[in-house]
């Protein structure tokens, strides 16, 4: 925590963008799913969760943007459209920090298999598309534990966007990226916003060791593959119910 840098200014010697800590100081494991809206990630994580629950494994499911602590602020900000790219990002980071400090970390230390629907890469992709600097975002989330597996569900933009537009009467303001002023038409704005997010995700595939999943493959077939990968990469035995 001690540093001797004379100024905040990165002009002299910019520090490299920070990666999440890789050292595992806990017996638990973390599996996350990422991807744009409509890529099928939530369905797949739900099925994975059911598989583990039915098998009696010690597991916990956590969702992006779900901490009750910052809920009222997020609601107020979104309703009145007060959020800038920076405050939007910070509010989600506060939400994540609350879940990280009060759920994810204690559960990882307690030996749970934690399943996360969206993780820090959502912030990197989405807030980056809003104009936040990637370097700043990496630092902001540098306290997050690195996942054991990051599944990246990738579906062609048209497929994903049509899945969302078909099921939703009206897109919300921030969801559609209306704050970016790309287009006055919500569906059009949503499409361009999602495209930017998709491009940002694609750029992280190698650097962040994503496991690429084809979101157009049939649900049960894809789930079979997902379970197989989890079985290979994580020793599930340690989360299994203890036999007396």
């Amino acid at each position: 925590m001690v540093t001797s840098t004379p100024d905040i200014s990165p002009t002299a010697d910019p520090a490299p963008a920070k990666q999440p800590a890789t050292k595992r100081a806990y017996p638990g494991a973390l599996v996350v799913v990422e991807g744009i809206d409509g890529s099928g990630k939530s369905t797949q994580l739900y099925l994975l969760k059911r598989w583990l629950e039915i098998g009696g494994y010690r597991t916990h499911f956590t969702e992006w943007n779900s901490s009750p602590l910052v809920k009222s602020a997020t609601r107020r900000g979104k309703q009145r459209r007060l959020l800038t790219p920076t405050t939007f990002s910070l509010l989600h980071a506060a939400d994540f920090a609350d879940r990280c400090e009060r759920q994810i970390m204690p559960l990882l230390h307690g030996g749970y298999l934690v399943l996360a629907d969206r993780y820090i890469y959502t912030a990197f992709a989405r807030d980056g598309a809003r104009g936040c600097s990637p370097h700043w975002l990496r630092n902001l989330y540098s306290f997050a534990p690195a996942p054991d597996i990051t599944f990246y569900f990738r579906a062609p933009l048209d497929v994903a966007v049509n899945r969302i537009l078909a099921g939703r009467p009206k897109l919300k303001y921030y969801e559609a990226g209306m704050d970016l002023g790309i287009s006055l038409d919500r569906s059009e704005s949503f499409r361009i916003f999602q495209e930017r997010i998709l491009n940002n995700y694609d750029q992280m595939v190698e650097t962040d060791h994503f496991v690429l999943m084809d979101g157009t493959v049939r649900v049960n077939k894809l789930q079979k593959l997902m379970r197989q990968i989890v079985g290979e990469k994580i020793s599930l035995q340690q989360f299994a119910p203890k036999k007396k």
Partner: protein
Amino acid sequence: MKRSNKKVLAAVPANGRPAKTKSKKAATAVPPSRFYGTPLPGVKPEELSGTLIVIEGTDGSGRSTQIYLLTEWLESQGFAVQTMGLRRSYLVGEDIDALLAENAVTPMTLALMYSTDFFDQLERRILPALRSGLVVLADRYIFTLIARAAVRGIARDYLHGIYEIALRPDLTFWLNVRPEVAFDREFKKSQTISYWESGRDMSLSNDLFQSFIRYQSMIKREFEYLSKRHGFLELDGESSVSRVNQVLRTRIASHLGIRSTQYKPSHALSHLWR
């Protein structure tokens, strides 16, 4: 309003002490930037014609009193003033109050809620004010937020990373007081000492006085470090209100190009003049 030669002004001694200049490298190699790092998304630094003046110091250092007086003085000189402070944002100000009342919040979450509060004020109140050429008086700034989070174990580099997109103040004053003096002043003000001001969340001591002193001493050490890193203009916060105000006025007047530093508070504020 004049935004005259900052480099020369930075070398003017304040309160008899040689001013600590900001990074010399930055002063010679690149013109002093209005931001520490990458500016906030969508902000053009050249549009900001106003002046940002920060008053830092622990609880009981006399910040608020000085800001009342400086506001009156600047307005009497024809300068429009905007103020900012902690937990005053529309977005999350009340939410932080609620979190603090519950004591259930963890350090990282609190630090990020404070940063949300800070940037909401900066982007929606302060930057528009600076674009209109106002003088902004900040009752605390990123430095208190960094110090409080750092004593709770959050890495200083991490915190500086969050605030590198913030605006660099034109002048940062630090009203330095000993923790014992701050205790006396705070106790006199409210007849008690608050949970957070005494760092009770850190389990330093069950005795409120001991806890306050130890916590404020830790904060003070962070400020000593920040003062060197960011070139604070350090003032003796224990001298009289009128004396501190005189030093502040002199320094601000030279920055803004105000000739006279004469000032006597109006009847409305005369009770503050001790």
